């Protein structure tokens, strides 16, 4: 317990923020194939599908993302005769309420292809939603780092035909008009397919919400690529439209997973710090209240009584305004302090 305290002035502390990132690669084999669907969790409500990086019954498994699909009730595909029509509309509305918000009439707004909601333009009315786990996205997805590669060939072909999507404008062209934080537009960055003319490089095809960790892909990413389906072992194939209307959400999720070639992004963790500059002037902290400091009324670390007072600083206590000890900073080795020296200790508190 200290007996003398020194007040920290405004110039004695400052705050700092450091961004720590992690690179997250997710290959298509994790999402479909390696674990024979044991890492895929379907729920009785049938509203979405969860994907784990290992069979989810194992305690080692980590949740990596959820997949679901939905369409607006203004979509041409919307029909009461569709399989899970109400659920697909509800999913779309839930996502758009959360990510796009409401207009001045209180109506739910639709996802806008270029993010410029006020200008109108093309809306994403049928969407595939990929909700990435907070465990992996941490504070946010790093802007400009999102890359998704979709397999676009026939269901029976090897993934030679691919469509690469990224948030090319993310680092400096992100949008801020979402209630869920910042988001960027996803663009087609490469088309590695021979026969398909549907997409060109630079076409907008979805949105990525950085803080929410949600990617919204327009379902027409897979349109006009012939049959869309879950592959040879499960011969459920058809056009994208047929899937959205005639197949349950879980079937759509399954089909999407089988078209999932690769996903990579970087996450961001904000490390907030306060740095306290603890200054020991020449005439301060040259004495210790430690009982071992004195022996027979003599300072034990002094060889000669005529010498200056001397102390060895081993730790720094940070106190509240009412002198309550809040934190202690320890030095790796004691620092010698006498009236001929002045020291500034940089104490960093991370939170």
């Amino acid at each position, binding site marked *: 317990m200290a007996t003398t305290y020194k007040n920290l002035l405004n110039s004695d502390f400052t705050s700092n923020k450091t961004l720590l990132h*992690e690179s*997250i690669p997710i290959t298509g084999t994790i999402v479909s194939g390696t674990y024979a669907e044991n890492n895929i969790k379907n729920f009785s409500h049938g509203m979405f599908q969860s994907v784990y990086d290992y069979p989810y019954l194992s305690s*080692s498994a980590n949740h990596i993302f959820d997949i679901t699909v939905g369409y607006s009730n203004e979509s041409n595909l919307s029909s009461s005769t569709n399989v899970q029509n109400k659920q697909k509309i509800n999913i779309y509305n839930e996502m758009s309420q959360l990510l796009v918000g409401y207009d001045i009439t209180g109506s739910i707004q639709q996802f806008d292809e270029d993010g410029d909601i006020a200008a109108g333009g093309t809306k994403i009315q049928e969407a595939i939603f990929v909700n990435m786990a907070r465990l992996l996205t941490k504070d946010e997805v790093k802007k400009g780092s999102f890359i998704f590669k979709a397999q676009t060939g026939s269901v029976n072909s090897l993934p030679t035909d691919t469509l690469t999507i990224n948030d090319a404008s993310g680092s400096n062209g992100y949008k801020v008009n979402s209630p869920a934080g910042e988001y960027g537009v996803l663009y087609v960055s490469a088309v590695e397919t021979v026969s398909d003319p549907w997409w060109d490089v630079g076409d907008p095809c979805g949105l990525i919400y950085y803080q929410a960790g949600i990617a919204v892909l327009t379902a027409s990413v897979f349109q006009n690529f012939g049959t869309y389906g879950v592959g040879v072992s499960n011969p459920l194939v058809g056009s994208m439209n047929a899937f959205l209307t005639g197949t349950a959400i879980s079937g759509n999720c399954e089909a999407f997973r089988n078209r999932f070639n690769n996903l990579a992004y970087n996450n961001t963790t904000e490390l907030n710090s306060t740095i306290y500059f603890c200054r020991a002037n020449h005439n301060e902290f040259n004495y210790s209240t430690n009982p071992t400091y004195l022996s027979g009324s003599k300072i034990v670390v002094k060889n000669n009584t005529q010498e200056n007072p001397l102390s060895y600083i081993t730790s720094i206590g940070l106190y509240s305004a009412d002198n309550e000890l809040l934190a202690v900073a320890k030095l790796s080795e004691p620092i010698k302090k006498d009236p001929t020296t002045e020291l500034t200790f940089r104490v960093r508190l991370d939170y």
Partner: protein
Amino acid sequence: MPYYKFGPDDVFNNQIKAHPPEEFWFYNKKLYYNSQLAITGAHVDNVPNAAVGELSLYEMNVDRPTGQLIYPFITKDGSLEAFSTVSTSDFNTDFVYGDIMSGTYPLTSSIFRELYIAGGYATHLSALKTTFTQYMPLSPHYQVSSSLLGRDLDNIALNIITIPSIFYGSSIKKGTVDLKIYYTGTLMAHARDINYDGALVDIFSEVSGAAASPASGSTVGVVLYNEGFIFLTSSVPLGNSTTLDNYSNSNQRPQWLFFGDYGEEGAVTNYETPSSAFSLEFSGTTYTPVVTMFANAPKNAVNYSPNLTTLDYAHALASGSITGSSTYIEPSIPLANVASSSFLAASASFEKMVYISSICIYDGARNKIGVAKLAKPIRKTNEDDYTFKLKLDI
């Protein structure tokens, strides 16, 4: 929905003190933690991507092949932050602003063994001498140089077992440290801190009833409970001339100095001790802060739910709403009577009651910050007075 403010006697901050048991086995060049065997994955030999006997800190790269691993990185910028593995000089000279410094996952932790030969400079003993002094009130065996015990730790061989705090929490519980040496499956020696003073006493004969072993009854080492170190000092050969194994890559009789030798010893590696197995058991001490809240539902209160299903809409439809050119009055809808009658053909008299299914916790600004769900709804009438106990581990 009614809000009730917690009173001064309704919220308690306390902590749960627990002593989780831990066990390590050393055998045949492998270390096993809590009897966990390797789980072969599709891409790696052990699914957590860490060796058996190691803990993976973030448990992120589960069954991932090389090249597909999650890794951390930081960009050199004005904050001057870097990973601790990047030295200050490397930070200054090897990286320019905007460069990326990468780390690796998984970060693993496990126990570690060091054998210092007699007369060698035991750096970790040197670093812990002050700590030894702090433990001296517990036992004289903590004295580094003791004429009473006739030994000086600076000059004798030392077997140091280092236990990271992730395995024990705040401290190792006194009286729980238990070490065993097996030779071809037979217990050869057994030491424990039987006096709760940190001194490890060989209790082999006492426990097994067998003839006294050479080290039986003697103190073979000490434990630093708070720091997680075990110092074994006894070099008394155990067993007999036929119980030999390849300790320190040399055919010898077992002794406490060889405890934990499973084929890795400083620069000497990759040898086998096929006849020996060692077990280390202890209990840690963990503190979990807990907030305990008492939510009171007093008599004549909390007997109404804003849930619309508590209204009797059949009656509302009969009465209807009142509308006019400048008026709209909602229909008066009575509460549904859910009181149960004791008679088959008769309904019970109306009684105010509610089924409580969850309790929400709000902050000062009435932001919902927690929800406690009941296993089954509790019926509350005007006469009932309930207190719900909510516990939140932090």
